[in-house]
Each structure stands twice: as structure tokens, then as C-alpha cells.
């Protein structure tokens, strides 16, 4: 046996024998309820969402105490839940009925509310096949929190039944204009790009579309229809901006010639039909095929000469009893969060449609970070940026290990979105 290994392991053994543990919650717990505090005492903010989600998945019910101790959860104190929390390292506080009554009274008196959580949403992530699970913030955090999800891509979205099998859909940082994030010329020759081009052109051909931009527009329209029918849509990074560009460009060519064989219409900006878009209007499109930027929707323009430095964004404070949806989406133990780049980092105020709810912005800046709105029976939420814990994320960077960021406030915003469709429908007044 390797001596060093022996010594190291024996040292750990000694520690095990002599050092007191860190977890104080003992179980089985003699209380009817478990409070999952989400303020600074929480030891695993991200996994706490997974614990709550799995309660619903097992057919149980819970409550989301909006604005109470960082947006805490009330869960039944059954053996499975207590065990699940212990395994995940999530701090829970046993709660008897008396204390629960006191908490409810406190909630009643302040800008707080208790929202019943009753059904685990069926979660789907729009992601290309073979994409590594560590390439997308939402996939990463769902995996980390232990929230089950299915993967869908173009064939599933445009296929029979479409997105009927899911309640909540996240869009991977896809380019719905079909221009491969406009990396086609800059990264020409890179193996990953060649793979992406081959996969997309193959799919467009299989589905009977003349080009990738045409096929992606059809996918965008199917996604908009999913929202219209009552689906919950969550998008990050460039999927936000390009989804709306694809929707608004129904009758105009906005794709460069490398994508569809014809150059972009030089008058495309004027010909866009913004009534089709979810969030944006009156944007000016970027005409250069070599510049990895789509329009002036993004305030930061990370890959262009107009690149803006990162600041910090602040979550808005909503009235929990009047605006429960917006309140749910901003539940956090931090109000101010460091910004992070993505192909689309932020959304310029000028291009937001009237009626869009701004959930977070950078004070004094001409852009916002996190927005929400409705379309038909459903809702959409857009969150700019790529990875909340890798502010400068670049192609080829190693994956973020979320066990190193268990309290990430930026990632919490994603998980708020996952749990928000679980809230009882009649409570969703906004």
C-alpha cells in the first residue's frame, strides 16, 4: 500500500473519531412540519429546492413562505423528506403547530405570503443531443439539486404532441436565428462548430426545411405556441434574444448567407413584426455576419467593440400579497448579485415591450437583467447571461462545480423559476 495514501486515510480516520460533526439536526423528528429556512443559516440553498421539488413529486404538498427568511419552504416532516434533506445537507428546522401558527401570523402582518405548492411541474430542457450536461447553467443546477428533467430538441418540439408532455421548458443557449451564434466565421474550422453545423443542417433536412434558419423559426413558433397554451418558459443567454428575433422575423430574412445561402435583408430591422415577439420590440439588428451579436437588445454586447463592463444587478422588491408571481421569481437571500456575461447578457430598457415586468436591473444602466411576462395562458421569464458563477465564461472553460457554490444567489433565481409552476394556480394572480 502506498504509504502516503495510508497516512492520509488514517488521518481522516482519526478526524472521524475525534472531531464533532457539523450537522445538528437529528431525526426521526417529532414534529409535524419541517421549515427549510432560506436565509443565511441555510447550508445548501440550491439543494433545498430539490428537496421541496421531490416532496411534490412524491405527491406531497408544501408551502412557499414568500419573503419569510429568504423565501423558506414548509414541508411535511415525514421520514422520507427528513432523510432526503439530511442526505442533501439541507438545513431543516422541525416545527410544531404552535410555532407554525406564530409564523403564519408574522407572514400575515408583513410583506410576505404563504403560497401552496401542490404539483411538481414536468420539466423539459431544450438541448441539442450529445450536449455535455455541464454546458448549461439550468441543466447544471437541475442536476445538482436533483430535479428530474427530460431533454427535448427540434424533433420533439416539432413532432407529434409537441411540448404537451411538459409544463416548464428551459431553452439552452440556442440561436433561434439559425446562425450558430454567429460564430460561423470567427471559429471556422473548430471541431465543435463543425459538429454543431452538421447536426443542425441534418435536422433541418430531416424535418423538411430548406435551411436551418427556417427550421429554427418553426421551433421558435412552436415554443411560443406552448406558452400560449399555458406553458411556463424560462430562457437564458442568447436564447432569450434570438427566440424573439426568430418570432418577429416571420417575413424577413435576418440570417447571414453562411446560414441560408442568401444575405440578410439590409432593411430587416424595419421589416420585423414585433407583435409576434414575447418581450422585445423596435430592436436594431446587427448586419455584420462576422460580429457575434444579433441586435441592440443586449446591452453588454460581449463579443463586439461596444462591449460594456459588468456591474451588479439588484432584485426588485414586490408586494407578496399582490404580486405573488414576481415575488416568487425574486426570492433570494441576497438582493444585489454580481453580473455575468453571456452571448446575451442583459436587455436594453428601450427594447422592452410595455407590460414586461422587470425583476432585476442594474441601477443607472440602460439595461435590465431579469424580466417576466405573459403570453396567452402561459408565462415566460428571461434571464440574461450564461453562468452566474462564471462571469467571464468562454468556450472551452471547465464546467462549474456547483458543490463549490451551494449558496449561489444567481443560481437561486433559476430554481425559483423551476418551482414557480408548482404554486397553486389560483394563487397566481399576476
Amino acid at each position, binding site marked *: 500500500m502506498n504509504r502516503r495514501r495510508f*497516512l492520509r486515510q488514517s*488521518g*481522516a480516520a482519526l478526524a472521524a473519531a475525534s472531531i464533532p*460533526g457539523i450537522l445538528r439536526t437529528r431525526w426521526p423528528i417529532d414534529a409535524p412540519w419541517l421549515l427549510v429556512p432560506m436565509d443565511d443559516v441555510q447550508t445548501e440553498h440550491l439543494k433545498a429546492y430539490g428537496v421541496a421539488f421531490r416532496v411534490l413529486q412524491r405527491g406531497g404538498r408544501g408551502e412557499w413562505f414568500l419573503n419569510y427568511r429568504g423565501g423558506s419552504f414548509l414541508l411535511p416532516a415525514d421520514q422520507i423528506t427528513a432523510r432526503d434533506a439530511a442526505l442533501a445537507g439541507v438545513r431543516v428546522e422541525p416545527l410544531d403547530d404552535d410555532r407554525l401558527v406564530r409564523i403564519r401570523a408574522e407572514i400575515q402582518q408583513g410583506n410576505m405570503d404563504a403560497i401552496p405548492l401542490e404539483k411538481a411541474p414536468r420539466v423539459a430542457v431544450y438541448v441539442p443531443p450529445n450536449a455535455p450536461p*455541464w454546458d448549461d447553467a439550468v441543466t447544471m443546477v437541475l442536476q445538482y439539486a436533483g430535479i428530474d428533467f427530460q431533454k427535448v430538441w427540434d424533433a420533439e418540439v416539432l413532432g407529434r404532441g409537441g411540448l404537451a408532455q411538459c409544463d416548464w421548458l428551459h431553452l439552452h443557449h440556442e440561436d433561434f436565428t439559425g446562425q450558430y451564434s454567429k460564430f460561423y466565421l470567427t471559429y471556422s474550422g473548430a471541431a465543435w462548430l463543425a459538429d454543431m453545423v452538421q447536426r443542425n443542417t441534418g435536422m433541418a433536412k430531416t424535418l423538411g426545411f430548406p435551411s436551418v434558419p427556417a427550421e429554427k423559426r418553426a421551433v421558435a413558433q412552436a415554443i411560443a405556441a406552448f406558452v400560449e397554451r399555458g406553458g411556463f418558459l424560462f430562457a437564458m443567454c442568447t436564447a432569450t434574444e434570438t427566440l424573439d428575433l426568430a418570432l418577429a422575423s416571420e417575413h424577413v430574412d435576418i440570417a447571414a448567407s453562411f446560414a441560408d445561402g442568401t444575405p440578410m435583408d439590409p432593411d430587416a430591422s424595419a421589416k420585423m413584426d414585433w407583435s409576434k415577439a414575447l418581450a422585445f420590440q423596435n430592436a436594431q439588428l446587427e448586419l455584420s455576419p462576422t460580429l457575434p451579436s444579433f441586435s441592440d437588445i443586449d446591452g453588454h454586447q460581449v463579443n463586439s467593440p461596444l462591449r460594456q463592463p459588468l456591474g451588479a444587478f439588484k432584485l426588485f422588491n414586490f408586494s407578496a400579497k399582490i404580486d405573488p408571481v414576481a415575488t416568487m421569481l425574486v426570492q433570494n437571500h441576497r438582493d444585489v448579485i454580481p453580473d455575468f456575461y453571456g452571448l446575451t447578457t442583459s436587455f436594453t430598457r428601450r427594447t422592452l415591450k410595455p407590460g414586461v415586468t422587470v425583476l432585476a436591473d442594474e441601477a443607472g444602466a440602460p439595461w435590465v437583467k431579469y424580466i417576466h411576462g405573459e403570453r396567452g395562458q402561459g408565462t415566460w421569464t428571461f434571464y440574461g447571461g450564461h453562468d452566474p458563477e462564471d462571469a467571464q465564461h468562454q468556450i472551452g472553460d*471547465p464546467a462549474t*462545480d456547483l*458543490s463549490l457554490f451551494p449558496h449561489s444567489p444567481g443560481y437561486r433565481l433559476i430554481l425559483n423559476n423551476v418551482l414557480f409552476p408548482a404554486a397553486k394556480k389560483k394563487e397566481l394572480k399576476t
Partner: protein
Amino acid sequence: MGNRERGTGNRMAKRPQRGRVLWGLLVCWFLLPIHGLRAQQDTLNRAMTLERRGDPTSALAIYQAILIDRPADINALLGAERCLGVLNRSIELIPAIQAAVSANPSSTVIDALAIRVWGIAEQADSIRRYAERWAQLAPQDESPYREWGGALQNMRDLVGARQAYLLGRERLHSPDALSPELAQLAIRSNDYPTALQEWLKAINRLPGYRPSAVRTLSQAPDAARPGLLRSLDLDQSPAARGLSIDLRARWGDPVGAFHRLLASLPPDSAESGDMLRNFLVTVRGINGSEARTAQAMTLEALADRRAGIDRARLHLEAAQVYAEAGDRKAARRMLTALSQDPDAAALQVGATTTLVSLLIADGEVDEAARRLEQIKGSLPVDDYQRMRRELAQGWIRAGALDKAQAVAQADSSVEGIALMGRLRLYRGDVAGARALLKDAGPYAGTRAEATGRSSLLALIQVLKGDSLPALGAALLALDRRDSTAAVKGFERIAEDQPAAGAAALRVLAGRVEAGRGHATEAERLFRAARVPEAPASAAEAELELGRLMISLNRFPEATEPLEHLIITYPESALVPEARRLLNVARGRVPRT
């Protein structure tokens, strides 16, 4: 008379007065600029002092004031650039730069500054404008293209950067101009074949680029390496040969690289000495015993090209490095050469110390002891004691516990007490060992020694019985690297021990088996140690079991013991590590 005198006197007095005035004016005319320069210098010094004190805002105000009077003052411009950079407001320098260019259109320093600032503003057109201006002012200079490309690289415009460099190369009519820049750009684009060709051009132009070339090319992915080496083999230039040798050394074949180097050494001893020294620098930066062997071989080759005390020193160093690499035969060969070298008298102590270590490693402990006594008077006391403990370790491995004890008894240091404790344990005197290991405490010696001592103490504290000769024999077998006997011994003793002791011994035996790659045996032992009566050992066993299953890619089987550990022993210090392994087993974090 008086008046005249007075008048004369006045005239006489006026002459020097007028002269003084004239002189004064003249002096002022000369001194004013000097005074002005000194005042300017003082102002600049004041601004720089403020910068050093960490007050960039005040320093910036001074630089800006200077620039109002003298827009092209380079020192003030550079100072303002530094301050604005610290304040993250570099772009505010743009108006000052435009004014500076108007004031001094022929300054290339201002052009360089302009490119940097426009680069921060990410304005490619402006960068180009200033680079072109600079290129017109200095048509034979690579610098404008270098700065231009660099600014575009910072903007991640790799295509634009490459175009800038190639334009420079074309205009300068020099096929190897800007080759280091193009090489590094190719590396950024993962285009290693192009990088290699550019680096070769750069090295042919200036051999000093070789370390940079090696450092950057050595990052090439495994799949690209054979192709790069083939290209180098086809190119017979000295630059290609040198690069090939260094890259082979870094890519896992340092000994092969050394042999290639030896075959390509020129007859000129000075030149070959330089090549060997360069290679020595390369292999010293590589870890692993192969690299140590290559290092020792290079030292030996260098020694063969030297004479006198230099040769002896190199032979001694080669012996030491061969010993570190585990090539004891070669180490002895070096020491023999040293013993026959009349110039090596001054190095005898170092040579004997190395020889003693070699003899101990070869099991010739008596001979090692004899040699050590020969140099006792020349060694510092601490070094002598350390060597004596090394001897004791050698005797322990040889099974000569009495001799080892004689050494330990004469050593009153904490390490000596710890050694005595271990010897008592090897003899089965568990009670005596406990007392001595406690006396030695947890701090003496290296961290590894201290941890080993503490873990040994933790083990024997849970064992029942003050005298366990079988345990001593098993631990001695482990120290003598007889793992099979050690594991058998631990298992046998475990059968006679209560739950806590038995579990601790099984965990230890399991670790030995896992270390030997005997996964099945290790798994059996860890599972046997999972007993509720021995919570500390059971938690360890479960952690080890989880780790073992993960190493075998049996992820579902890893989760059960890890979950059990977390739930059953929530206060164990192993719980955070168990959660970490559970995340890996469930695929919730990327495997690192």
C-alpha cells in the same frame, strides 16, 4: 565737488546697477526654463507619490492639469493612463490622446498609447487608424503591427489579429516577422501545427524564444503530439532538433529525449555544454522518476565534459539525483567515480551521506552504519541524528529490531521517542507504544510522519489488550512492504478483538488491499467493518466503500454506504466528504 563727486558717484553707481539688472535678466532668461522644468518635475513627482500612496484620483487630477498646458507630455499621459486603468475609466483618456496627437503628430509613443486605450474601448477602426499612422512614421518597425494585433486579441478578435500580423509581415517584406505573435495566436486557436511552424521561424531568428515555444507547444493535446513530432523530425534544422528534444521530454519521454540530445551533440564542447545545460533546465521542471533519471544522466554527461572540482560536484549531484530516481546502481557508479577522483576530497561528506542512504535502501545497513560513523565528526548533529533514524528504519525493514532500538534509545529527540514507540508496537507492547506515541505528540517530524503517528495511536487506542505481538508482527510486515502478510495478520487479530478494534483493523486491512488494487478483498473488508458497535470505524468503512465503488464506476453501489454514513453518523467529520462523493456518484457535479 561734492555734487560732482556725488554725481560721478551716482553715475558710477548706476553702471554696475544697470549691469546687475542686465545680468539678472540674462540669468533669469536662462534659469526660467530650468525653474519651469524643475517645477514640472516636482508636479510629476507629486502625482507619482500620490499614485504610490494609492490615491489615483488625486494623481489623475495633477496629470490632467499638466496635460491642459502640455497636451503631448508623455509622462503625464502615461500617468493618466495608469490612474484611469486603476479606476476602470481608461476610456476617458481618449480626448487627451486626440489632443496629444494634434500637439505632437510625430510621436509613436502616443500612437502606442492610443492603440492600448482604443483597445480597451474595443474600437477596432480606431486601433487600425493609429496603427497605420505609427507604421507610416516607422515603416521598418514591427511594433505597430504587434500592438495592433495584441489589442485585437484582447478583444477576442483572433481573425482580425492574425490579419494585422500578416499585413505587418507583408509590408516589412520579412517572412519571419511577428512569428512569435502568430505562434501564440495559433495556440489560442488550438492550431498547433501552425504554431509550431511559426515558433520555428522565431527560434531561427532568435534562439531565446525556445523556452516560450516549448512552454506553449507542450500544452498540445495528446492527439496532436505525434503529428508535431513527425513535423519536427522531418525538419533537420537545429531549432527543430532542440524543440523536438524538449517536447519529447515534456511529453513523457525524458530519457528518450536525453538519448536524442546525446546523439545530436556537436563536437564543440562549449556548444554541447550549453545544450546539456539547457536540457537540464527543462528536465528539472518535470516531475516523476523518469525525469529525475534524465536529469541525472544529463548531470553525468556534463560531468564528463568538465574537470577538477566542477566534475566532482556534478558527479555527486548526479549520484544524489540517481538515488532519488531509484536507480541505485547508477548512483553507486557515480559515487565510485567520485571516490577515485583526487579532486573530490572536499566532497567526501556529501558523497558518504548519499552512499549511506543508498546502502540503507539496498539493505546493507551494517555497512551504512560503519560509513556513517566515519563522517560523524563532519556532520552537523541534527543531520547525524536524522541519518541515524534512517539507519534505524533500515534495520526495522531488515527485521533487526534490537539494532534499531539501540539507535532510538540514544536519540532523545521527539522523533526518537516516536521511533521508540513504533519499536515497542512492533514488539507487541501496545501499552508502552501508547505512552510513547502520546509523549511524542502530534507535531514533530514531517506532516506525513505526524499524521502517521496519530493514526497509529488512534488504531491502538481502540484495541483491547496491552500486549499484542501478532499486531506488532503485522505492522512490521506492512513497514517491510509485505502487504499480504500484513493483511492476513490484521484479519487474524480482528477475530479476537471486540467490535471497535476489529472494525478498525478491517478498515486498515481494506485500505491496504484497495491500495494493492485488490478491489474484491477491499470491498469484503470494508463491508465487514460496517458495524454499529464501532461507529467511527463504520463511518470510515462506508466512506472507503463509497470511494472504492466510484473508482470502479459502480455508482449505484456507492450511494448506499454513503447515504448510510450521512444518515447514521450525522456528526461524523466524514459527512462533508461523503456528501461530496455522493454528488459524484449521482452525477450531480462534474467528475474531476
